[in-house]
């Protein structure tokens, strides 16, 4: 089954996979970033004293966490263009990479909502009271005092989230985005040997996730200066 390994293991093929790997990590990084923004909004909504933002955040988290990411990708992939066609009568073509980032950001945002919320809840109540006695508004308290402390606490789970996103980015191969997994499949089809490129892809994923987790540990260490 590894008959073609020598033939597959060429510089050109490795570069091709490396390009796919770069795309995968780029998609994951963008999704983590947009997810962080959505997650902050979601967590703020969930903690709001008003019912509407609370309800919106709850529905968002329930739906996104309760359905498979693959299904969400497929729905966004088909729903947005068909809605566009229904409204304007024209055909819309969107880059599958863009769909991927969109779907994964929305997905990650739901998980990060819960993450950030737990981080905020873990900050000592006395911090809120201190801000209150100094006259800081709720919003400034959250922005300047609570969130910085909350984010520091959630660095380890955020790194896990990033690693999950790197691996889950392989799901968008099914809507035609040529990331790392799809790249491996394309090479496999050329050589009638999928096993060798799959193994190479696995190594790429492993290297990326290990590097990310190492960087995570460094960041954690640096943030602990004030501990």
């Amino acid at each position, binding site marked *: 089954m590894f008959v073609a390994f020598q033939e597959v293991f060429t510089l050109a093929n490795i570069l091709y996979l490396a390009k796919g790997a770069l795309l995968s990590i780029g998609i994951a990084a963008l999704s983590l970033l947009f997810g962080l923004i959505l997650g902050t909004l979601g967590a703020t909504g969930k903690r709001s004293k008003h019912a509407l933002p609370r309800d919106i955040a709850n529905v968002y988290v329930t739906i996104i966490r309760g359905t498979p990411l693959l299904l969400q990708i497929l729905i966004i992939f088909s729903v947005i263009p068909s809605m566009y066609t229904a409204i304007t009568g024209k055909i819309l073509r969107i880059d599958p990479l863009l769909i991927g980032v969109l779907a994964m950001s929305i997905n990650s945002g739901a998980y990060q909502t819960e993450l950030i919320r737990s981080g905020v809840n873990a900050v*000592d109540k*006395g*911090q809120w*009271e*201190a*801000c*209150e*006695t*100094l*006259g*800081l508004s709720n919003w*400034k308290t959250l922005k*300047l*005092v609570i969130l*910085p*402390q909350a984010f*520091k606490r959630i660095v380890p789970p955020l790194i896990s989230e990033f690693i999950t996103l790197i691996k889950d980015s392989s799901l968008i191969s099914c809507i035609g985005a040529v990331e790392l997994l799809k790249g491996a499949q394309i090479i496999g089809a050329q050589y009638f040997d999928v096993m060798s490129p799959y193994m190479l892809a696995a190594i790429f994923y492993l290297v990326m996730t290990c590097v990310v987790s190492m960087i995570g540990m460094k960041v954690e260490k640096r943030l602990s*200066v*004030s*501990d």
Partner: protein
Amino acid sequence: MIKVENVCKNFNKTHALHNVSLEVNQGDIISLIGPSGSGKSTLLRCIHGLETIDSGKIYLDGELMDRNNEKKFREQRNKMGFVFQHFNLFPNMTVLENCKLAQIEVLHKSDAEAETVALEYLDKVGLKEKRDSYPNNLSGGQKQRVAIARALCMSPDIMLFDEPTSALDPEMIKEVLDVMKDLGKQGMTMVVVTHEMGFARKVGTRVVFLDQGEIIEENTAEEFFSNPQSDRAKDFLSKVFYD
């Protein structure tokens, strides 16, 4: 300066405060003392508005403190500084940043102005050289002195202290009390919830003794300690002074 009128406060059916009235005048150093659970911390927190009150009124400089009048209420609260038992310094900021934050964000001072004021008060509490340290690298006594400086940076008219030395190791209590004593000498009006009877007696001008949510006895510090009137105060004092 502060007038508390018939304030009641309940926590799930337990009377934390029952019909409490109290007057604080300019230059007073009032010690709130009493057994644990007597409501002294609750009273202090109600004065600052950290707790809502169920009934009664609180006046500051003759004006009613009214939660519904948000803007005014905030201005009134800003005239009072608050020091917590557990310091509540911001661990993600240096000592200097702790002292500058609210000056810049609330009083809208420039960074340079805020720094000048912060260093002035840090110097006052003897911690100017710790300006760039993080709170977690300070001792308990140093943390509390920074917390006092941070509150003073907002130039309050009144300082409220909620058991400021209760979380400290014994050898650090004095450095905090010394700072408070200096503050009193400079004419700061203070209300202090404390278990430090020596401080209440020597530095305090008046003592308010609470038990079970009520004010049992109120007197000048000297008179209260040398000649307590009520049985409950006598009983309490016999328990806290070991001899």
